[in-house]
């Protein structure tokens, strides 16, 4: 929230390329450039929203930042420590500070473990607390996410989707992290439950001073929760600005189209709205278009867009954009 606060995480030119292999000898025949040179910073106690369509690389970006996948190139600096080059042992010491909440609480919780074991596992792994102290910590975590502390011996299937997501949040909080990547944490939940979970995340942020990278495709929810918003398209970042200026004055034609495509829950407005309807589909990241990656669907593309990669520049203070046509 505070502009003067310090930088918590700095991502510089981060890339993640996956090889495409073929045949018995797994000969490499191409590369999927899932994330291709993105840079941004997250300040302490801030929420940065990361939006984009499926396949744009937003989840891969989240995972590379946490080093769940090794980066192909680029740097991730967390509180001054360059974590892409740390040895596994040293990286492990950093892990408690950086946690993740996943999209589908159904898949990310082990069905054979009790809730107490799920939340307790990171505590055991990192030897934060033992015995009675650990049990108390687990109960306190359950309470903090709005679940009954008596539920420690239940299994994930005994809970609803929203409650399971709360368990996932409790597990992420178990090691007192500073930074949490929320990867589509509400996408699998019903509308009436989404607000409960988002409110919980916001309360926890206030109480514990957390910093979030909030990955989502839901632009209305991102507007609500994020202080600043980054928009990705096909592995690159196309725009980054404060929530207010991104939604109020989007500069990149992709951001403009994306915002105009979101249905608004007001029939009067919705039926009159002018939509920018993009033609075609997102191209394959294995073979992205030359120059600007958005040019194949861009309503205002010119010949130069196919030739030159647009520069990532700060158009106004704090408002970054990569587009030739933005003057």
């Amino acid at each position, binding site marked *: 929230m505070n502009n003067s606060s310090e930088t918590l995480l700095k991502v510089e030119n981060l890339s993640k390329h996956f090889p495409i292999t073929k045949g018995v000898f797994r000969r490499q025949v191409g590369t999927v450039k899932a994330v291709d040179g993105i840079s941004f910073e997250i300040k302490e106690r801030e929420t940065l929203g990361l939006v984009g*369509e*499926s396949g744009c690389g937003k989840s891969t970006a989240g995972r590379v930042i946490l080093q769940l996948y090794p980066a192909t190139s680029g740097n991730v600096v967390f509180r001054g420590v360059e974590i892409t080059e740390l040895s596994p042992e040293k990286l492990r010491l950093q892990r408690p500070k950086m946690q993740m909440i996943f999209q589908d609480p159904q898949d990310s919780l082990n069905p054979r473990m009790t809730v107490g074991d799920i939340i307790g596992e990171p505590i055991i792994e990192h030897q934060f607390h033992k015995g009675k102290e650990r049990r108390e910590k687990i109960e306190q975590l359950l309470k903090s996410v709005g679940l009954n502390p008596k539920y420690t011996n239940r299994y994930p299937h005994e809970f*609803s989707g*929203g*409650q399971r997501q709360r368990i996932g949040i409790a597990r992420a909080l178990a090691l007192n992290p500073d930074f949490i990547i929320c990867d589509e944490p509400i996408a699998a939940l*019903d*509308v*009436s*439950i*989404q*607000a*409960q979970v*988002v*409110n919980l995340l*916001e309360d926890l942020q206030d109480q514990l001073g957390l910093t979030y990278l909030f990955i989502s*495709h839901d*632009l*209305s*929810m991102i*507007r*609500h*929760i994020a202080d600043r918003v980054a928009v990705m398209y096909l592995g690159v970042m196309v725009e980054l600005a404060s*929530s207010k200026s991104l*939604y109020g004055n989007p500069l990149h034609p992709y951001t403009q*189209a*994306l*915002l*105009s*495509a*979101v*249905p*608004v*829950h*007001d*029939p*009067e407005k*919705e*039926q009159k*709205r002018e*939509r920018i*309807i*993009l033609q075609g*589909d*997102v191209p394959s990241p294995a073979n992205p278009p030359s120059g600007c990656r958005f040019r194949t669907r861009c309503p205002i593309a010119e010949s130069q867009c196919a030739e030159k990669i647009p520069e990532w520049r700060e158009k106004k203070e704090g408002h970054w954009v990569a587009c030739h046509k933005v003057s």
Partner: protein
Amino acid sequence: MSQEKLIEIKNLKTFFNTEAGIARAVNDVSFDIYKGEVLGIVGESGSGKSVTSMSINRLIPNPPGEIVGGEIFYKGKDLLKYSYEQMSEIRGKEISMIFQEPMTSLNPVLRISSQMNEILVKHEGLIEEEATKKSIEMLKRVGIPEPERRIYDYPHQFSGGMRQRVMIAIALACDPKVLIADEPTTALDVTIQAQILDIVKRLRKELGMAIIWITHDLGVVAGIADRVAVMYGGFIVEQAPVKKLYSTPKHPYTQGLLSTLPKLEGERTERLESIKGQPPDLHNIPDSCPFAPRCIHVSEKCQNENPRLEMTDPEHQVACWWNTEKENYSS
């Protein structure tokens, strides 16, 4: 909108026999669909919206599901009394359906051409060549580039959005009177969703079919529907013309849903409103109002008796004791 009733559903009950007992997925639901209108059915998962729509086309897998009561009239005839053969004359020709996941609803080992032609050969009695011609025309209508070539492709050669277009082309090939669209854009990205909505709106103008659009997205419904029915726990809790529903929602659930949504424009809310609690367990629907445990206006009556959808206002109906009492009080 003309007032000719195409489909009339009366007291429909569809239950599922599961290990945990009987799940009352659709529990006494009644509504009408008029010629050429778009009815939006909104609800969360488990509210019974998909089961309602599948009941109309008699697509409920039996066992475990069963339509245990009610009537579904299509042009005055009760579809529930139809035999399997009679029903297959209706499906695709009179009432078509498109589904959420276009990959699973297309056969992966058949070319698009044979999947499209099948329905035209069956219902329209066309020979293969004529059917192919008509199919290509339909693909062109839904905006598939190079339809003459693409018709011989397999489903996996199409993207998600393109597959949904193919599904729409198949569904509309025989010029049905009713199209049931069960969350057709939920699995798609917003920019692709905008394309599909655009196509459906255009085709509706051109072909004039009635549409039942099932979704959990109140934004999508706002843009496409004429009338909206809100479902909760297997019941319709509110039904109104789209503008009325959004401007003056009456049921506390509808009110709650609309206020929980973050806005894309205007003031940013500091904190989202939320509806407390969980959706009901369909195995255990009490005789009280299904929303009572989560309702902020709950009274004793709500916990004893389930309110019926009040037909007092021909346009705007709501099933809620709080509303009934408010109206009695003011009149």
